[in-house]
């Protein structure tokens, strides 16, 4: 089953080789900077800069575009607002919102596409994120697929037994039953998973095979990434 969270097939590039700890730090700071940009010029510059980085990262564009569908659906009302406001000649707020969201989506897509999930969790652990949160993140990433698969099986079972989308009352009632069943099954599964983890010697520590080595290029990329962003926001706020 392919899902939006599936790892993207990615070609080797400087982005894939970048130490995940430095990458997380650079991306987090850049995301914060983008959130603080308040002019069209700085946001457009960020979009342009990131587009160049994306192009150099050798991503598989088909996969990126497939995942963009959900994001575009989310953005549609804001794009509509932008169009309305541009025709009315009023505030440009929706346009900036759309632009900022696109830049943040590009950052997230770039990060997800070029970093293995096991490396992300290990990097977060070495950056000092609480173990509880890392376990939670790792478990969500692992089991969301299983719960989605169970949901799909339930939906199929309903359809083959004659449930039609037009029967609104029955559909909503049945879906609420299915949701309740899924929550109960997830709870039972959580118990079994916890037991299995204990049987494999788990006592709360987060350990993985991922190993990181900081090279000088990692630091250079970090300062380049963050430096350009800081410069843009500084220019932005000085005007």
């Amino acid at each position, binding site marked *: 089953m392919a899902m939006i969270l599936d790892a993207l097939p990615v070609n080797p590039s400087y982005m894939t080789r970048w130490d995940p700890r430095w990458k997380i730090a650079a991306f987090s700071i850049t995301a914060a900077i983008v959130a603080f940009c308040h002019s069209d010029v700085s946001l457009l510059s960020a979009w342009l800069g990131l587009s160049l980085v994306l192009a150099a990262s050798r991503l598989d564009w088909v996969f990126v575009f497939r995942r963009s569908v959900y994001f575009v659906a989310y953005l549609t009302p804001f794009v509509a607002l932008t169009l309305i406001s541009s025709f009315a000649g009023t505030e440009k707020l929706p346009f900036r919102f759309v632009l900022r969201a696109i830049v943040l989506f590009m950052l997230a897509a770039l990060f997800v596409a070029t970093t293995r999930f096991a490396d992300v969790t290990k990097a977060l652990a070495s950056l000092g994120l609480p173990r509880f949160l890392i376990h939670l993140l790792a478990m969500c990433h*692992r089991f969301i697929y299983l719960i989605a698969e169970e949901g799909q099986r339930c939906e199929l079972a309903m359809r083959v037994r004659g449930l039609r989308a037009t029967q609104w009352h029955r559909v909503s009632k049945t879906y609420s039953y299915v949701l309740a069943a899924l929550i109960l099954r997830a709870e039972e599964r959580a118990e079994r998973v916890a037991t299995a983890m204990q049987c*494999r010697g788990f006592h709360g520590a987060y*350990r993985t095979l991922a190993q990181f080595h900081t090279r000088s290029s990692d630091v250079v990329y970090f300062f380049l990434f963050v430096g350009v962003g800081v410069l843009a926001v500084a220019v932005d706020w000085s005007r």
Partner: protein
Amino acid sequence: MNAGDDTLIRLCDLTFAYRNNPPVFEHLNLEVAAGESLGIVGPNGAGKTTLLLCLAGVLPVRKGCIQIAGLDPSTPTDRRRLPAHVGIVFQNSDDQIIHGTVAEDIAFGPLNLGWPDGKVREAVQEVMRRLGLQGLDDRPPHQLSGGEKRRTALAGVLAMQPDILLLDEPSMFLDPKARRELMQHLNQIGQTKLIAGHDLDLVLQTCQRTVLLASGRIQADGPTSEILANARLLEPLGLEVPYRLR
């Protein structure tokens, strides 16, 4: 365990009941020698899984005693040491595979045991080679077939190099080819094995000795070929003599 005694598992007068329920089994006495493969068969609700969970220290034992690999699962100190000696493979592999990739998941147990990274990597590669999982290192679990998931779950336990392996319904959800491959792998494992399940043909091909658990008691204990050929013993319990013994 006494010196010179090769008994690796000893149950004495073991009784277990879930809270507010009648006992699942009562007064079980059983000994399993090092290197032995023991099949545990019986109808649904006979207590096969419960027995394995008691042995693995998951369920607390209040009546009777268990000695397993020289440890007593009822004491917290020994229970903490159990995972290094006793590995359990659960019915549903999806409950057991918890990491995002095959290699990371297999490494989970050895890393928890505090092994150095180099040793863990060696153990992971070795067990992946043995179970035919090469090339699947970075594969996410939801992209594995049923047989691959089962082998990954087994590999995750074997990588910890336990003295005793407990397998609960190992052939569940497997197609005939994956089941056949699993049997081959199980026969290559030298550790003491306890295999619980309804798949009598698998038990016949992987275990020298079998116990029949029913109505909370051990109804029969002996060579697998004799127990599983006894239709008068099996049929009242809803079990059937395997095809190759008919």
